[in-house]
């Protein structure tokens, strides 16, 4: 069987069984096992179990339960709610202020954490209820969290960038520096989108009713609610920058900050801690079993000679160097709909990189395009990690179609950002050229 046909069947079955309602983790795992059986034989199931062990051993994933736990504590102690009340008071007549504030918080989260999952689950817990409570449109709110959560891989530190550097040989420091401005660009683009959209459709994000608008003294008093979150951010970022802790260890520092906050907020109880721990276990478990199966899924696809497909696709491309870059982005975009970023990297980069460099393009710039594309991929249906992580935390009234629908405008915003960085490479290359 040709790799084209295998690919079609492989991803076709993924979509088919997803639609039938089987949980994602078991669809990925089950489809892998079936295809491995027919392309390699029963003995290859060893690979599935082996990938689970490999995932259990990834130290950087330890940040997931820690950041999720931090968010759970902040939510249960009312620290998060106080923060959103403050943002609401201060945004006053500005429509969409909370959604924009959420994306800003996501950007800060991204600077603290090198992966995507923790931020999405954390913000889904903290930000979503606050926005829904105040009458925000669910699609507007969900999408903002979806795109904001993905910033974790674009704003340094970033595990995906480190892997990109390992596979392509470019400098990690330059990649980190290159991600900063495109990350901020995306934040600005999302903010512009929210402002414009809410200007034309005010009902999507109600501003604070005039009778509730506070006077200065109350506004200032509400500012106190930022103190604790700022304390946490300073503790986490401070410990990374001062060389006290590695990014993963800094997640534990974040938990410490959350616990201190709960004591300061006079909400600390053992019951609260236990509840938060149980919920964290449940959410981390959901994430991890998806990762277990997703890693088996991409290993299975690679064993089927996936690279030949990419080589074939790249063989005859019209449109010169820029046509090639655009076709690569389209391939990445399509793959990101059905595969995880690490798998995509292993399959495509060995084929892409020699072409990119021989055409004279900057591999750092290409890396940033790659990472932005993966960030978009985190929220493109049918298989986007962020979509499923979010589904795990939202109230039952929000369904998968809601989440799928919510990402459409934000995916477009992401593509606009990708195009801007593609046309103006200086956005990515300015900082690394300056710093190194």
């Amino acid at each position, binding site marked *: 069987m040709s790799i084209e046909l295998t690919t079609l069947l492989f991803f076709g079955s993924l979509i088919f069984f997803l639609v039938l309602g089987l949980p994602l983790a078991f669809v990925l*795992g089950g489809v892998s096992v079936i295809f491995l059986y027919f392309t390699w034989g029963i003995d290859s199931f060893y690979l*599935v179990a082996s990938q689970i*062990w490999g995932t259990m051993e990834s130290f950087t994933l330890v940040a997931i339960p*820690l950041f999720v736990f931090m968010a759970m504590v902040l939510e249960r102690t009312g620290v998060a709610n106080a923060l959103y009340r403050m943002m609401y008071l201060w945004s006053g007549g500005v429509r969409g202020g909370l959604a924009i504030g959420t994306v800003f918080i996501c950007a800060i989260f991204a600077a603290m954490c090198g992966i995507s999952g923790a931020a999405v689950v954390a913000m889904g817990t903290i930000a979503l209820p606050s926005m829904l409570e105040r009458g925000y449109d669910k699609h507007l709110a969900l999408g903002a969290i979806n795109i904001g959560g993905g910033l974790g891989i674009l704003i340094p530190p970033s595990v995906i960038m480190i892997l990109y550097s390992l596979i392509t040989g470019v400098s990690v420091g330059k990649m980190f520096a290159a991600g900063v401005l495109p990350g901020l660009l995306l934040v600005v683009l999302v903010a512009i989108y929210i402002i414009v959209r809410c200007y034309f459709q005010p009902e999507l994000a109600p501003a604070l009713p005039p009778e509730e608008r506070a006077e200065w003294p109350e506004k200032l008093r509400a500012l106190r609610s930022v103190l604790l979150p700022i304390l946490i951010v300073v503790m986490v970022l401070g410990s990374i920058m001062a060389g006290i802790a590695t990014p993963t*260890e800094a997640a*534990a520092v974040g938990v410490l900050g959350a616990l201190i906050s709960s004591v300061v907020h006079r909400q600390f109880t053992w019951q609260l801690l236990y509840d938060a721990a149980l919920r964290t276990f449940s959410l981390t478990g959901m994430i991890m079993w998806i990762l*277990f199966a997703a890693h088996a899924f991409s290993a299975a696809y690679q064993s089927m000679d996936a690279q030949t497909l990419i080589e074939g696709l790249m063989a005859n491309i019209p449109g010169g160097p820029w046509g090639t870059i655009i076709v690569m982005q389209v391939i990445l975009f399509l793959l990101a709909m059905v595969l995880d970023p690490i798998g995509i990297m292993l399959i495509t980069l060995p084929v892409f990189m020699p072409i990119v460099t021989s055409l004279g393009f900057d591999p750092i710039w290409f890396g940033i395009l790659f990472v932005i594309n993966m960030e978009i991929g985190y929220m493109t249906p*049918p298989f986007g990690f962020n979509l499923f992580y979010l589904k795990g935390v939202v109230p039952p009234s929000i*369904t998968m179609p809601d989440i799928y629908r919510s990402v459409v405008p934000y995916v477009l915003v992401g593509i606009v950002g990708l195009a801007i960085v593609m046309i103006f490479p200086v956005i990515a290359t300015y900082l690394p050229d300056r710093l190194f």
Partner: protein
Amino acid sequence: MPVLYAFINGVTRLNAWIGRIASLLIFAMFGILLLGVFYRYALDAPTVWTTELTQFLFGLYAVLSGGYVMAHRGHVNVDIVYARFSPRARAVLDIITSVLFFLFTGAVLYFGGLIAWESIDSMETTYSSWNPPVYPFKAAIPVAAFLLLLQGLAKLFEDIAIALGRMTPEPDNAEHRP
């Protein structure tokens, strides 16, 4: 069918119990990581064991969650078409798609068991400076797969009972979340 109900309840309780205990590992990971930072930064005497132990506890924590998450309907799915069916039709659908579930967990149980056995057989250690044994953590893979498989069986029996009209489905699955 009291035996069947007893099985379903027993399995669910077992996983809930294991989950309650395993969930406490978050405190261990938190504490050990901070301790590692403290030793390295404040005392200038880095430990050889904190990173490795945290990593292994995390692996245990992550893999053991499978059955617990399933018992609480926490493994997310796509409910676009699925939500439109009647509870009975959903049960039938779940019975059919459970083939994939059992293939996957069965493969993990058997081959995870093999990986664990290879490790136990050679009394595998990490050969790091701390050099702890690996086999207890590798053994967690088949154990976790077994717990998940049990929960899957419980769900299958429930679905069969619902499909046959012997059991009314719970009103809203989401209520089960902790």
